[in-house]
């Protein structure tokens, strides 16, 4: 277990999110905007569809020879003077980073946005060890000051108003300010500029690790990725093993579709290729470069049912189109990774048990699969998770009874007919005109907000004899 289960049940957290009117508005605006931007970007990019297929193939090809490509990546990183570390668990990963911090005497660490470091809960560990972690991506900086966790993979502070951010800055930074994004951005720039220049340690994730060359690639918009990997004396990159890709030629394929899928940009502002520590007489660059390769449940999925999810580029496109995410936002999911892919990643990191409710947080509409740049079949894997839950009997007893009965009913037409007739009788007190407005028990959850049609006086099958006769006439 990497992450502990949230205290409140999912349905309750979802309910809270639905009642948060600002969150609702923010989610609608943000996701609608991202959907539009993504659509425009791909509309003017006819090669996009073929490249998505290519991208999927490259990811699958890489998995098929993962040992070979990781081997090459490691050899090349070491050849350039970098150090590679191997973390099987979150705990180990934290330990490795803390060890580097301790050994290099780091007191502050600037971080560029990294879901991998969120996943292993690195910041808490750093603080406990007396190293101050400073998030530098504006959205992450905001939520760090607010002591919250990100609510979206690429827009972590989507749930905050500019007024809330202004209040936050006033309170935490002791700075008078106004609720104007330009002004707030300027404040963050000033505050963080100092931190970048003074920090001993830079911590980043990695969007890609190019095996052929030992290059780590970071994709950012703000410039903090560049700062973090150039200014502090030590740079540590935490990278999931599945992020390795074979070559620079492959990199071009992913770059062509990643930013378009995430924000509709052709490329994000900074695509930074890091070839190890400072060299060649350059003025800036870290003296030490460390790559922490992270397993944390990924390796087990190489032969597992969630293998396809290892192709994820962390673009967030599936979040933006998911009807459930769009209504409840990221925090309601309760784990590091929200949205459709988040459910799969949570299962990967914490086991099927952790998603026995979340696996049903989907209407299986398929919009995620449609939007995914590497065509991950998320709905299929959600059904697999549900199957795992049912086979392991971890679903609630009442559910198993209902579905058990349903299964039997649907295999025995005589039982099915009896059930229909019974239901027709039982429903009588509840029928008002041609609708049912309230029923107790099983379908009360439906009728609280929606009318139900009554069971027909005669089912189609009961009418067929007549219909058949009419046809022969």
């Amino acid at each position, binding site marked *: 277990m990497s992450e502990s289960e949230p205290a409140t049940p999912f349905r309750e957290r979802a309910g809270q999110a639905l009642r948060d009117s600002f969150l609702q508005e923010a989610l609608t605006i943000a996701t609608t905007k991202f959907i539009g931007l993504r659509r425009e970007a791909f509309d003017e990019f006819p090669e996009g569809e073929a490249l998505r297929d290519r991208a999927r193939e490259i990811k699958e090809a890489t998995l098929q020879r993962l040992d070979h490509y990781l081997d090459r990546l490691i050899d090349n990183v070491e050849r350039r003077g970098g150090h590679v570390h191997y973390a099987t668990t979150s705990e180990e990963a934290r330990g490795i980073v803390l060890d580097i911090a301790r050994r290099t005497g780091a007191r502050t660490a600037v971080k560029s946005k990294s879901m991998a470091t969120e996943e292993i809960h690195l910041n808490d560990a750093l603080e406990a060890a007396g190293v101050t972690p400073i998030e530098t991506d504006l959205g992450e900086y905001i939520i760090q000051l607010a002591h919250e966790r990100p609510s979206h993979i690429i827009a972590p502070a989507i749930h905050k108003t500019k007024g809330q951010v202004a209040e936050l800055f006033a309170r935490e930074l002791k700075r008078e300010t106004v609720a104007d994004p330009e002004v707030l951005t300027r404040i963050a720039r000033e505050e963080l500029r100092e931190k970048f220049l003074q920090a001993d340690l830079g911590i980043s994730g990695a969007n890609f690790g190019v095996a052929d060359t030992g290059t780590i690639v970071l994709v950012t918009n703000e410039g903090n990725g560049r700062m973090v990997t150039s200014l502090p004396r030590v740079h540590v990159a935490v990278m999931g093993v599945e992020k390795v890709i074979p070559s620079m030629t492959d990199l071009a394929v992913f770059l062509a579709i990643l930013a378009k899928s995430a924000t509709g940009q052709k490329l994000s502002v900074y695509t930074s290729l890091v070839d190890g520590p400072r060299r060649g007489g350059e003025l800036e660059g870290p003296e030490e470069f460390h790559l922490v390769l992270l397993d944390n449940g990924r390796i087990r999925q190489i032969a597992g049912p969630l293998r396809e999810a290892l192709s994820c580029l962390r673009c967030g496109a599936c979040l933006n189109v998911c009807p459930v995410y769009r209504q409840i936002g990221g925090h309601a999911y309760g784990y590091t990774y929200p949205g459709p892919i988040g459910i799969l990643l949570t299962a990967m990191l914490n086991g099927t048990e952790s998603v026995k409710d979340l696996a*049903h947080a989907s209407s*299986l509409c398929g919009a995620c699969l449609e939007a995914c740049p590497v065509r991950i079949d998320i709905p299929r894997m959600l059904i697999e998770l549900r199957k795992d839950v049912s086979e392991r009997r971890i679903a609630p007893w009442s559910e198993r009874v209902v579905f058990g009965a349903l299964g039997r009913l649907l*295999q025995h037409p005589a039982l099915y007919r009896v059930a*229909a007739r019974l239901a027709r009788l039982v429903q009588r007190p509840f029928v008002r005109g041609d609708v049912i407005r309230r029923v107790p028990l099983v379908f009360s959850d439906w009728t609280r*907000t*929606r009318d139900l*049609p009554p069971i027909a006086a005669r089912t189609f099958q009961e*009418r067929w004899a007549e219909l058949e006769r009419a046809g022969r006439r």
Partner: protein
Amino acid sequence: MVTCLGDVFYPEVGEKIVRLLRGLGVTVEFPAGQTCCGLPLFNSGYHAAAAAVARRTIGLFRDAEQVVVPSGSCAWMVKHEYPGLMTDPADRTAAERLAGRTHELSQFLVRRLGRRRFRSAVGGRLTYHDSCHLLRGLHESESPRALLRDLSGSQFVELPGSDECCGFGGSFAVRLPEVSTAILDKKLASVEATGADAVVACDAGCLMQMRGGLSRRGSRVRALHLAEVLAPEETPR
């Protein structure tokens, strides 16, 4: 294939389909003893039971030349999931044969029969909601629109966000009813904003969800199955 929801809740839709097809010169048969395609079991992860229901259904339609289904989700289940659920190779072959012969209603009318022009049975302004399984599972967005655009006696208006889920999702609607309703409210707001008199869909699940919401809010907008909108020919051509 009448489908479980169609049989029990919307038999009039089934009747209209029979009349519609007969009017086009199609001989309609109905294998007795149908229950369900098994999708509710499949989606909730009860695959052994789903496979048993699937095997039974395959058997029922063994002699059918073509199978017409009024719901995109059920057609999808048969075409895409039945073969994979069969472990026995003979069963799998039978499943694949059935898959090849199964069509959702609008696909059958437009793509197999080549029929697009019908008189409208309802008049007024109609809009169309793309059900998820029909749109993304069966890649069908054109046939229903062709039928609705060519209807004489009613006008067609596109629904913004027509490709967005209505929130039904089968058991999702009762497992997470608050979320399901919030998604539905968004859908119905779009529907009402079009000024249409009715929203048309090709899936009983979507209709149950949308009709349930429209009725609860006392809306004058109706939710109709495609078959309720196409007037049958009186005599076969």
